[in-house]
């Protein structure tokens, strides 16, 4: 068993060395497809990240009836807090509202008025999983039903647009990514087919002297895996360096999940391995 695997590994590497050109093409194909897939992936992750940022900043602002006094307001705050999906409720008193207004529009804006016209309000933040438009809409109407709440403001339209585009993006990118993965798998399997074809004589002799099917396949599968490792590794390296440079030049421009390197490597191996499996089906039938 062990000698069998050692032999397969030796043979696999021997095959890679012998077919340097085809092997390089195969590695390059894997590398290129993974780079494109990774660009898609990083793009979608960043769009997602930006949307999440915007969503997290979108709070509901609920204005409180002017006639309500402190104990009633406390009661109201508790009621809102109990609604499912609400993460945090902050009370903004009339005075605080006036202060915020002053900070934003300057000292003297209120001087012409003798009374403070700004209502007290609650700033309501939702839990992350309730931040898309449908649950937000539900919470919106829940709160509006409460006595003492006059009006609620939030940028529903913006949220809807963001979400709609997110969905379209996601579909487009998944479709394109899958097509790309598929075509690169076919490309890789064709290159490996060439490699196998160039060694059909070896395979013929293997069959004659009693090699099992799995024994014949093993070196080619190892070659596929090695090619995938190299293609995936190169792609991972490229992005690692790229992000490093970008982060030095413009910090925090893009959001990178470090698991992407591992993902690239695994995708590469999957591509190389499945490419070999497809190619081998044609050549070794028994």
């Amino acid at each position: 068993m062990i000698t069998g695997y050692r032999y397969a590994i030796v043979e696999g590497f021997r095959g890679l060395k012998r077919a340097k050109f085809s092997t390089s093409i195969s590695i390059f194909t894997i590398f290129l497809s993974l780079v494109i897939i990774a660009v898609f992936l990083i793009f979608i992750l960043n769009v997602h990240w930006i949307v999440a940022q915007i969503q997290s900043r979108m709070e509901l602002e609920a204005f409180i009836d002017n006639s309500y006094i402190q104990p009633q307001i406390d009661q109201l705050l508790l009621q809102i807090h109990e609604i499912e999906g609400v993460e945090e409720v902050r009370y903004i008193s009339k005075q605080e509202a006036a202060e915020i207004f002053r900070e934003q529009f300057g000292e003297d804006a209120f001087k012409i008025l003798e009374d403070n016209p700004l209502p007290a309000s609650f700033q309501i933040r939702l839990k992350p999983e309730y931040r898309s438009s449908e649950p937000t809409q539900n919470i919106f109407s829940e709160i509006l039903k409460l006595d003492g709440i006059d009006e609620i403001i939030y940028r529903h339209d913006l949220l809807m647009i963001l979400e709609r585009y997110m969905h379209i993006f996601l579909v487009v990118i998944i479709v394109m990514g899958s097509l790309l993965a598929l075509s690169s798998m076919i490309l890789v399997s064709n290159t490996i087919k060439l490699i196998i074809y160039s060694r059909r004589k070896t395979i013929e002799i293997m069959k004659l002297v009693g090699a099992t099917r799995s024994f014949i396949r093993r070196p080619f599968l190892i070659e596929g895996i090695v090619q995938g490792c190299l293609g995936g590794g190169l792609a991972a390296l490229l992005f690692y360096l790229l992000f490093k440079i970008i982060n030095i030049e413009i910090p925090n421009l893009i959001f990178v999940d470090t698991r992407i390197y591992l993902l690239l490597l695994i995708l590469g191996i999957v591509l190389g391995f499945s490419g070999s499996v497809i190619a081998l089906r044609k050549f070794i039938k028994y």
Partner: protein
Amino acid sequence: MIELSNVKAFYPGGEGLELVNVTVKPGEFVYLIGPSGAGKSSVLKLIYMDIKPQSGFVRVNGFNSLNMKRKQIPLLRRKLGIIFQDFKLLTDRTVFENVAFTLNVTNSRQRDIKRKVLRVLAEVGLRHKENKMPHELSGGEQQRVAIARALVNEPIILLADEITGNLDPLSEEDIISLLEKIHAKGTAILMATHDNRLVRGKNRKIIRIEKGRTIN
């Protein structure tokens, strides 16, 4: 040991074997003689189960074509030594590696491989050329390497398909006497050839084949 009984086997093109009966007993040296296209190679292919009979059966060393699974073919072939007119050596490997190939493929231990390969190379008279590449050898020597590769697994029979076809008369004689030596040590041989001269003056069992039919 080997028995082909009333075998019919046709290729997709419609050519092939009409009716073949062959038996080879342990240790026998049998010639299969017939003109080009008669079906000699096809008979050998039936024995190493590269093709299957449409009717009749092939029995080889306990395996029977009627109930044999594809997965068992490698096991069967490990008991056969097969040699061809065109040697079928791996041109990018040394003599030693070519012979060791058979053993590598069947998962032998590294130490055994060295011992067995050197012994069989000595047997075919090529012990001193173990590190040469095939292109550095004469045709006769290349055929000996192929014979060594076939022998190293200690087969019950050598199947030889026109193995002197590419050789000059002198090398041909060499190879034939090598086969006789191997036979004397107890290995059965089935030798396919169109060349009647090879059996002239020898007392060998002969099976004649013509147009896909064996004639006893």
